[in-house]
């Protein structure tokens, strides 16, 4: 049951993320990017979270019992750092855009069109 709920949550987050990313408002697009990244991180966790019975500490591994995969969590930590970096850079660029163009509507940020 929990696996189904997890899949559903990932799907809903993915949908919201893609929808927000395609909005005209650049700040909403940036937030959509963050939501999308969370959805993918959750997908990554799901790849190894439901396998074992124990948390992967060396001390509590009993013979014949399985532990959950620790590697996905290491991956996720790195991916979260990366997502944080790109999200803040994106917000920084949107911030300067809003000052220079006086708008965050992507339809008005069109000086490159000649």
């Amino acid at each position: 049951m929990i696996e189904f709920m997890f899949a559903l949550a990932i799907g809903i987050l993915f949908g919201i993320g893609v929808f927000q990313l395609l909005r005209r408002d650049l700040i909403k697009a940036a937030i959509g990017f963050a939501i999308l990244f969370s959805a993918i991180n959750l997908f990554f966790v799901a790849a190894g979270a439901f396998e074992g019975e124990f948390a992967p500490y060396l001390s509590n591994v009993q013979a014949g019992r399985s532990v959950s995969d620790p590697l996905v969590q290491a991956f996720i930590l790195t991916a979260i750092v990366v997502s944080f970096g790109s999200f803040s850079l994106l917000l920084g660029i949107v911030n300067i855009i809003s000052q220079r163009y006086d708008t965050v509507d992507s339809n008005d940020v069109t000086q490159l069109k000649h």
Partner: protein
Amino acid sequence: MTDNPLLLGALATPLIGAILALLSARSNRRQRAIGVAAGLIAWIFAAGLLAQVHEFGVQTYALGSWQPPYGIVLVADALGALFAFMVTTIMVAGLLYTYHCHDKCMTYPTFVPLFLLMEVGLVGAMLTGDLFTLFISMELMVLASVSLTAISDDQFGLEAALKYILISSMGTLFLLLGIAAMYATFGTLNMAEIAQTLLTGERPFLAPAAALMLLCAFLLKSAVFPFHFWQPDFHTTAPTPISAMLSSIVVKVGVYGIFRLVTLLFIEEAFLLERLLGVLGVIGIVFGSLGALRTYNAKRMLAYSTFAQIGFILVGIGWGGTLALVGAIVYAFNHAFIKSALLMLMGVVASYTKIKTADFVHVRGLGTKLPPLLSWLVLLGGLALAGVPPLNGFISKLALIQGGVDNGDWVNLIIVVAAGILTLMYMIRAWQQIFQQAPLPSTTETKPVGDSMAAPLLLIAICLLLGTVFAEPLLQLISETVRQMMDPQIYIAGVGLSNGS
């Protein structure tokens, strides 16, 4: 399995250089010197690595002594070492250009560190042995290049950076999604182990979807047809040395990923992927060349030209077979030198204008006031790009056409040859406009000093050498590379998986 410190050196030198450059942020001159020094040392490491790989086979370095498939392993096989050598060579030229550049953005204390971080990302992507590190390296490269373009002197740089980061983040997200799908199916991200599983003929449920997601991410990084629209803006507005890097080696990361997909991981499906790549490549060639013919800006023309040249490489991959792959790699290798040289030359031309632009209306007839050497260099670069004999562009065209003849695909062959004529047309047109025509009233005012020509001169000299003296060794080197690529067992055995599962 022994650790080869050269691998770590090639990756860590630019990183240490970036940190040192940040620490000496007070002195801009010292920062630039650190940049050139770090680039040179990384180049020495990469050159040594290339020599060692061809002498002793695949070299590896297990980071933190965690053996593969559990730890992160750096792998240099023939392809990776060749691409890392190409990247570091071009990077030295780029950093050299920065040393004598008058752009305002070069004086920012974060310019050189970001430049070196871009090199870390590039070298890391070429030398990594697992997919997750590939993702990290690509993201590092993207973030560095976005920041560098956003601070460009060009007022449109910020907008182009926003465009690129939105699109490229989407691409990176799909790369991560594909990697997660890979992990869910294979339980590992080590490329050698995945390749081993796929070689047994096993095809897990999610594997084709993961392959397609990886392919899309790589196509986006290379600016191939359906994902190309950000590229001309982004490559035009970046500061000169950055746009030279973006258009020559950053787009090659995607090409490198595609090589890995079709020759190491998904060999059985490679036929289908190659068909798709061939079609996308032809679209790129036609529309890139036509786009380059009708642009209003010399740098933008070269950006469109990159779109076309990546098309040539993809057509080479699409033909498949040993000869065509040799053609594609020779093309990728030579194009990096030609395109970075040409973009730097156009940057030098633009640096003489009052408002620093490469628009044809502003640079037309400017050549009468520029050093005559510049005119010759631009002409040589243009001829190299079009594939005229004494330069290396001819060698790459020849190798590619050999692959096409070997394949018997006459339709695409005709398109490739005809596009070569288009290339000649737009390059000669640009050269004439800048150096032959009478100046317009808008170009009468020029700055007395522009950027130094040392770096593009160096690159054009390399182009000449690669087209004449080193043509045969280069072809031999790349034939050997392709021979090793065609046998994925060499890579898998070279990584030396410790548990063999």
